[in-house]
C-alpha cells in the first residue's frame, strides 16, 4: 500500500494470502467451553533471548492473550549517564546493545556532536558507516542464528555464527575489540583504519556475499522453515505504524521507511543502496527484509570503503572537542539493526549531561507482542518473537 507502485511488489501482492489470523479465536472459543491457562515463558526459557518473560494465555495450543514483562535488566542507564562526563558515557553506550554495540555509541556521539554544533570529518563519517554496517551484519546474523534455534534447527545457528565470526574479526581489525568496541568518539572515531583493513573488509564482504546463500538455501529452500514462518504474526501497516514498530518489522508490512534514506545522517545520502520492502506483513516477510538488508549492507560497505580510500591516508578523522557542552536540547535518530533508535540530550553547559534519554526500538516493538501473537499457536510464538530480535540491554536500559 505504501511502497511505490511501479515496482514488482504490486504485481505479486495479489497472490498473497488475505491478512487474517491463522485461527479465528472468537469463533473457536464460542464453539466450545474450554479452560484457558497462562503459560509463563521466561525469564529463563530457551525462547527468550535474554531476560524477559512472555506470559501467554493459551486455549489448548492457541494463544488468546500475551503480555510481555521486561525490566529484569534495568540498570538505570539514563540516570547513571547524568553523573558522568561526556567521554565516559561512550563505553557505557556500548553496553546498551550487545549485538550491535557500535550503533548506539555512534548515536550517542552524533547527539553530542549536534549539541556541540560540530560536524565530524568526512572520513570519520564514512568509517562509521562501515562500522555501522558491520554491526548491522553482526546483529542480523545473530538474529538469524536465533531464528534457527527458535524453529528447532541448530545448524542455521552455527552457520550464521560462523559467518558472524568473520565480521567480529573485522571489528577486531578496526578497533581491537569484538563486541564492546568503544570506537566512535565525539567528533570522529578512535583511530584511523589500520593497514590492509580495506583489503580485509572487501575480502570479507565478498566471502559473505557468497556464503550467505548457503544459509538462504537452508531456510528459504526448505518448505518446513517457510511454512513455519508464513502467515504467522500478521500485522497491517496501519497497525504497525500505530504500535510504534520500527525497522525491518515495519518494512516487512510494506511501509517504505528507512532512516538511512529518508532522514539521512552521517553521509548515508552519498551512498547508493536499496531499502527492501515487502507487503505480506508476516514473519517470513520480516525475515526476508532482514536477509536482503544484510546483502545491501555489503554493498554499502564496499562503497563506503572506496570513499575512505579516495580520501587518502592523511585526511582528518577525529576532531578535538571541548569537554563542556553548551546548554541546549538536541536529539539524533539512527537506523539501528532493530529499528529506529534515538537519543535525546539536554545539556546544561557542564561536562555532564542533564538528561539523556534513549529510545530503544525493541522496547516499543515488544510492547506489541500481544497483537503479534494473538491467534497463533504456541509453536509460532518463538517464530514470531524471533522476528522482533530481542535485545534486553537496550530494552531495559
Amino acid at each position, binding site marked *: 500500500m505504501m511502497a511505490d507502485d511501479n515496482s514488482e511488489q504490486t504485481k505479486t501482492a495479489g497472490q498473497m494470502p488475505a491478512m487474517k489470523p491463522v485461527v479465528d479465536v472468537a469463533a473457536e472459543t464460542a464453539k466450545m467451553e474450554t479452560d484457558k491457562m497462562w503459560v509463563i515463558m521466561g525469564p529463563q526459557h530457551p525462547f527468550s533471548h535474554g531476560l524477559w518473560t512472555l506470559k501467554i494465555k493459551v486455549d489448548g495450543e492457541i494463544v488468546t492473550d500475551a503480555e510481555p514483562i521486561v525490566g529484569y535488566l534495568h540498570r538505570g542507564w539514563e540516570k547513571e549517564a547524568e553523573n558522568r562526563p561526556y567521554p565516559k558515557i561512550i563505553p557505557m553506550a556500548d553496553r546498551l546493545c550487545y549485538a550491535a554495540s557500535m550503533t548506539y555509541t555512534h548515536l550517542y556521539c552524533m547527539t553530542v556532536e549536534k549539541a556541540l554544533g560540530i560536524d565530524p570529518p568526512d572520513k570519520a563519517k564514512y568509517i562509521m558507516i562501515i562500522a555501522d554496517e558491520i554491526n548491522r551484519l553482526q546483529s542480523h546474523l545473530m538474529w538469524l542464528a536465533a531464528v534457527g534455534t527458535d524453529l528447532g534447527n541448530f545448524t542455521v545457528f552455527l552457520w550464521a555464527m560462523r559467518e558472524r565470526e568473520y565480521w567480529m574479526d573485522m571489528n577486531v581489525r578496526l578497533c581491537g575489540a569484538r563486541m564492546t568496541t568503544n570506537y566512535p568518539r565525539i567528533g570522529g572515531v578512535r583511530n584511523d583504519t589500520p593497514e590492509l583493513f580495506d583489503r580485509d573488509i572487501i575480502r570479507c564482504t565478498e566471502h559473505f556475499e557468497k556464503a550467505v546463500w548457503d544459509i538462504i538455501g537452508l531456510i528459504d529452500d526448505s518448505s518446513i522453515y517457510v511454512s513455519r514462518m508464513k502467515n504467522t504474526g500478521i500485522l497491517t501497516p496501519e497497525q504497525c505504524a*500505530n504500535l510504534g514498530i520500527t525497522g525491518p518489522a515495519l518494512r516487512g508490512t510494506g511501509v517504505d521507511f528507512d532512516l538511512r534514506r529518508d532522514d539521512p545522517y552521517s553521509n548515508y545520502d552519498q551512498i547508493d543502496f536499496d531499502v527492501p520492502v515487502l507487503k505480506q506483513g508476516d514473519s517470513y516477510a520480516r525475515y526476508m527484509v532482514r536477509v536482503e538488508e544484510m546483502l545491501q549492507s555489503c554493498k554499502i560497505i564496499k562503497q563506503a570503503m572506496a570513499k575512505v580510500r579516495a580520501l587518502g591516508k592523511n585526511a582528518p578523522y577525529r576532531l578535538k572537542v571541548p569537554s563542556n557542552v553548551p546548554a541546549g536540547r538536541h*536529539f539524533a535518530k539512527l537506523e539501528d539493526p532493530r529499528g529506529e533508535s534515538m537519543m535525546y540530550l539536554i545539556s546544561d553547559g557542564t561536562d555532564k549531561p542533564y538528561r539523556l534519554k534513549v*529510545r530503544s526500538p525493541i522496547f516499543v516493538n515488544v510492547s506489541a507482542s500481544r497483537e503479534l501473537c494473538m491467534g497463533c499457536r504456541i509453536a509460532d510464538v518463538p517464530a514470531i518473537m524471533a522476528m522482533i530480535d530481542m535485545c534486553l540491554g537496550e530494552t531495559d536500559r
Partner: protein
Amino acid sequence: MSPIREYDSSWEGDIENKLTEKFGDKIKFTGQEIRRVYAHVERDAIFDVCKFLNDELSFEHCANVIGVDMKDYMQVVYHIDSYTTYKGECVELTVDVPNDDPHVKSVSSIWGGANWNERETWELFGIVFDGHPRLERLLTPETYEFFPFRKSYKLRGWE
C-alpha cells in the same frame, strides 16, 4: 494511509501554519531544522494537538515520550514521526507539567506505541498520564514507592 511524498523544504512551514491555524496561541514554535519542527504546547491542548497531527497531518508514529525533571517543573517531550505525507518529518512537542500537579492527558489511545513509553515515564518520573489503560510499574519492581529518575533522587555509589 495517505500517499508518500518526497521531502520538500516547505514542509516545516506548512506544518507550522496548519498547527497555528488550528490551535492559535496554545502552541508556540521554538525552532525549525531540516525535517524537524520544535514546538511548545500548553498542557490542556496536547491531546488535541496529537489527535490533529495523527488524523489530519498523518503523523502515524509516536517515536518517544520523554519525561524531564527540570527541578522547578517537569516536562514531557513527544517525538512524532510521519511515514507518508511528510515522510521523515519529526515534530517535537514539549509540555510543561507543574510539580504539584503532574498530570497530562495520555496519547496512548491515539498511538499504541506511546503506551509503554508513558508507563515508563510515569514510573521513573511520577508524571501521571490520565486515561492511560494500564499505568503500572514496568521496569522497576512493583514495591518501589519513589520515582528514581527525578533529580531529587540522588545516586549512591563510587562516582
